[in-house]
């Protein structure tokens, strides 16, 4: 190679790296739909550029293609260290074992943060780390694809993945702009990366991938295959409130768990409580780990005075298709047994969690207590706001005024906090509100965030997330400490005829959220504002005071006024409804959206599998021709050649069949000689010879056998003999072997 050519090649390599960097940065930008601020982008861009620049710089000096990738990997690790954990690294740059421990910590925090936030999420340390590490990793991959494998066309696939993230995570995002920008950058990569302009082929290849980038933008937003096939279970552990709507809207019912209990009428199974209302969403405030809190002895629930009656129940739960890290248990658990793995309880919420084990496949026994305060006990606290509960009263600044105003209007006139709470519950369960899992999605106010509440209060249609979130926020505005608990409604009872026990079956449609309000002396008390769902249908009306409780007599006579009913949080739950009032419509919508999802997934797979399909089609056409009379030895030979090219064999530049066969000498197969001779006789002696397709198969198998595993995968998914029509790599390779 002359100096001029070398210079030209280097210049092109730099240009290609630049184009790839631009495409990466633009693609990362599309995540702006999901994350707040710009810091995360700067950090990720820094890491991505560090990787690409290190690889490009090394490439200019060292020829072996492995070095640039190695340099890129090192640069990526350093960049991630510098941006994410400089304090845990040597000199702030060099990663040491502590650095990786810090990384692990950041990953956990990031996952937690993703789980607990709604979009657009605050890009905290954990999320920034995840995005940065992903950017570095993807930069490394696209660099290797573009330079090492010389397939700039394939750079589109990782970019497509990044760009697709927002519409996959959030179904309502269908913004074509990021797709268009990414597609434009991708075209630039193609333009710079292609050495020889074979116009039509290049155009076709570009059109295919650009279509792949644009098609998702044009499709209606869909949820990705979360249990779409019915095969996967449900995971409430990771992202309780954000997944809830999706679980309720599943196209088919999935059984989450079954249980038996000594509690009459079944129990609410709570996974966790969300006490932090940040504005965009409710989230668990406490994400620390408590390895020293074993679940065999959990302290009593906070806030219960000695004079409040307490019932104790035993419940045996079996997970069917439930996964996740939060254990569904009735509130308040006293002890949990029968679990595999390390589980602990969180001091604030008494939720049971594990960092290492999962709910999936487990069964466990829970002893739980339930307070049964009388209505007088609940009223006793008046309107006082207990000290130390400020976090449970916090409301975000952006909370629409309608929330406070409605709260005042509905319950402001009541004398005590308890009466106000009952008024709120009655308000929600009244005729003004309707239950719908789909209305919020259609009207674009799905979620539990502050702004959503305003819309919900105007539309007055939603599901448990909206009802519980609205009631909790309104209670806070009235000075009542409130939080949202997430888990499952009691489920569907059935009687086992053999053992005569009641078994409750809890399905994905029983996924539920409910508000819990704090009253001095009673602790956290469950309310049920969601109409038609969950326990007391008429929370405020059913009021059998517990006559067996001596404290009742000791304090005040039970109220006899039916007009002022007291709450009984432990009263018999009604049969939970499987579907909302508009359930059948929901079913239809689900099916439509599933059809679109199938189209989308199928289209994506088709685009990714296009090269493999083209290769298979060509192969079967050739074998079919060989099977017919008049089949050509050239078909057999072309198949061998393409297979060799797919597996990255050298020697494709050999001009004559004999020289090419010599390049396959290591195969040493009589079949190869027969094929070669047949071709020579047919082409150069005009004497047609029958070709045995088995010979072709044997030679092709031998070629595959001698290739590395990675090459074999590549030969199937990205066959070079097909791609070389779009990417002029074959020409480059032939040049190399000739020179």
């Amino acid at each position: 190679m002359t100096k001029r050519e070398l210079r030209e090649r280097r210049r092109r390599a730099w240009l290609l790296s630049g184009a790839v960097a631009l495409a990466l940065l633009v693609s990362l930008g599309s995540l702006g739909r999901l994350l707040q601020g710009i810091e995360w982008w700067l950090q990720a861009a820094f890491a991505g550029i560090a990787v690409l620049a290190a690889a490009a710089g090394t490439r200019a000096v060292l020829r072996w293609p492995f070095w640039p990738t190695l340099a890129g990997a090192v640069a990526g690790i350093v960049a991630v260290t510098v941006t994410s954990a400089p304090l845990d690294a040597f000199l702030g740059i060099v990663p040491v074992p502590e650095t990786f421990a810090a990384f692990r910590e950041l990953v956990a925090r990031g996952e937690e943060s993703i789980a607990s936030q709604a979009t657009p999420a605050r890009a905290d340390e954990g999320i920034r780390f995840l995005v940065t590490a992903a950017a570095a990793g993807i930069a490394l991959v696209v660099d290797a694809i573009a330079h090492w494998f010389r397939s700039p066309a394939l750079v589109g696939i990782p970019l497509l993945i990044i760009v697709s993230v927002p519409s996959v995570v959030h179904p309502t995002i269908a913004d074509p702009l990021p797709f268009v920008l990414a597609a434009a950058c991708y075209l630039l990569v193609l333009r710079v990366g292609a050495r020889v302009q074979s116009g039509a082929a290049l155009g076709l290849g570009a059109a295919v991938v650009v279509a792949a980038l644009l098609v998702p933008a044009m499709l209606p937003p869909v949820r990705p295959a979360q249990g779409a096939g019915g095969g996967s279970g449900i995971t409430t552990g990771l992202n309780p409130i954000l997944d809830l709507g999706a679980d309720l809207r599943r196209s088919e019912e999935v059984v989450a768990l079954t249980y038996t209990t000594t509690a009459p009428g079944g129990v609410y199974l709570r996974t966790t409580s969300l006490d932090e209302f940040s504005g965009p969403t409710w989230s668990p405030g406490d994400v620390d780990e408590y390895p020293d809190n074993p679940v065999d002895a959990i302290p009593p629930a906070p806030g219960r005075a000695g004079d409040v009656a307490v019932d104790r129940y035993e419940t045996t739960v079996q997970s069917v298709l439930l996964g996740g890290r939060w254990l569904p248990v009735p509130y308040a658990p006293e002890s949990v047994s029968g679990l595999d793995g390390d589980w602990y309880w969180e001091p604030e919420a008494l939720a049971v969690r594990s960092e290492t084990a999962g709910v999936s496949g487990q069964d466990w026994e829970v002893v739980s207590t339930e307070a049964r305060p009388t209505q007088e006990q609940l009223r006793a606290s008046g309107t006082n706001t207990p000290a130390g509960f400020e976090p449970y009263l916090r409301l975000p600044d952006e909370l629409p005024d309608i929330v406070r105003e409605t709260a005042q209007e509905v319950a402001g006139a009541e004398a005590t906090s308890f009466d106000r709470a009952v008024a709120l519950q009655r308000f929600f369960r009244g005729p003004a509100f309707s239950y719908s899992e789909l209305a919020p999605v259609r009207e674009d106010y799905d979620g539990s965030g502050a702004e959503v509440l305003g819309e919900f209060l105007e539309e007055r249609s939603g599901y448990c997330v909206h009802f519980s979130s609205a009631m909790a926020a309104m209670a806070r505005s009235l000075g009542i400490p409130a939080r949202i608990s997430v888990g499952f409604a009691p489920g569907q009872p059935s009687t086992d005829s053999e053992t005569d026990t009641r078994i409750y079956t809890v399905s994905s449609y029983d996924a539920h959220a409910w508000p819990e309000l704090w009253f001095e002396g009673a602790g956290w008390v469950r309310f049920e504002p969601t109409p038609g769902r969950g326990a007391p249908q008429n929370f405020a009306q059913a009021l059998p005071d517990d006559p067996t409780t001596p404290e009742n007599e000791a304090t005040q006579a039970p109220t006899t006024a039916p007009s002022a009913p007291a709450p009984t949080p432990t009263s018999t739950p009604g049969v939970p409804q499987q579907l909302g009032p508009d359930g059948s419509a929901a079913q239809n919508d689900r099916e439509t959206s599933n059809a679109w999802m199938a189209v989308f997934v199928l289209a994506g797979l088709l685009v990714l599998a296009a090269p493999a399909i083209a290769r298979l089609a060509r192969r079967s056409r050739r074998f079919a021709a060989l099977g017919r009379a008049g089949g050509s030895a050239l078909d057999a030979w072309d198949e061998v050649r393409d297979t060799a090219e797919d597996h990255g064999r050298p020697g494709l530049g050999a001009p004559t069949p004999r020289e090419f066969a010599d390049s396959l000498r290591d195969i040493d197969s009589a079949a190869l000689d027969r094929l070669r001779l047949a071709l020579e006789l047919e082409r150069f002696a005009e004497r047609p010879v029958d070709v045995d397709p088995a010979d072709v198969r044997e030679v092709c198998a031998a070629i595959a056998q001698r290739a590395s595993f990675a090459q074999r995968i590549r030969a199937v998914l990205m066959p070079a003999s097909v791609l070389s029509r779009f990417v002029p790599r074959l020409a480059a390779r032939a040049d190399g072997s000739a020179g």
Partner: protein
Amino acid sequence: MDSIPAGFEPGHAEVPLPGAPPMPFEDVYRRSRDVVRAIETVIDGKREAVETALTVLLAEGHLLIEDVPGVGKTMLARSLARAIDGSVSRIQFTPDLLPADITGVSIYNQSQHEFEFKPGPIFANVIIGDEINRASPKTQSALLESMEERQVTVDGRTYELATPFVVVATQNPIEMEGTYALPEAQRDRFMARISMGYPDPSAELGMIRSRETSSPLDALTPVVTTRELAAMIHTVRNVFVSPPVEQYVIALIGATRRDPDLRLGASPRATLQLIRAAKARAALDGREFVLPDDINALLVPVLGHRLIAAGRSAATAGGSNLTIAEALARIAAQTPVPLGSAGRS
């Protein structure tokens, strides 16, 4: 199999092959192996040169062996001649050699009162022309003319030369003293030019031992008769050249004419000779048809001495073997073999 008419080349009359029906291809293969083996008892480790020499013999061409003195040029020529049971003559070219010393002279026979033609050394099956570039251009041209026409005209009478007829000329590289470089036009008449090159160490060691007592050439006995050779040549003429191979040759030759590294490309005569040599090579391999590989293997021997590299003076033209060989290798690598499309029948 189609029979390709031989001798279609203008100025090259169909040479009758006395009493020689074509020999089966397997026999051609066997007999030529015999010849190669016989020659290799004399010239060790030069398989390629020996095979090319035999190819030229069967293709009815003439061979030019070019190398420094003492590497066995003459030995190859002589052993080739010796392996064939035909007449052999040897002409040592010197600056004072005259055309008549090659063709022969008419002498007046006093007893019969008429001129009697005394044939020169050219009237033999195998002519060894030693150091052909030391003769004067006039003498060279007399030899080359008879090579082409396969006949000699002396005093208005034309005499046919023997069949088969092959000239094996040797020459020293032209930079050496006391030589008259063969002009391109004359080099073009040789079908192929080969270089011997120095023997490898083991071959040279074997040579020391075998030559210590006697010349192995003395022990070499003919393995092929003239009649058999004529039959073999007949067979070679029947070798099939397919259209793809013809197109391939045309493409290669065309490329030499366009190549920027070559000042003079290959002539149409070169095209014909390349095809003819390729047919011989195929027959030597026991094949009834020519492969592109035959063409590739013969590119340098057949075309090398006809081309002139660019940027060289005429004096050194043809001597810059390396550049020309490189250019030919590049052309061969870049010219695709036309295979046609599948399913044509």
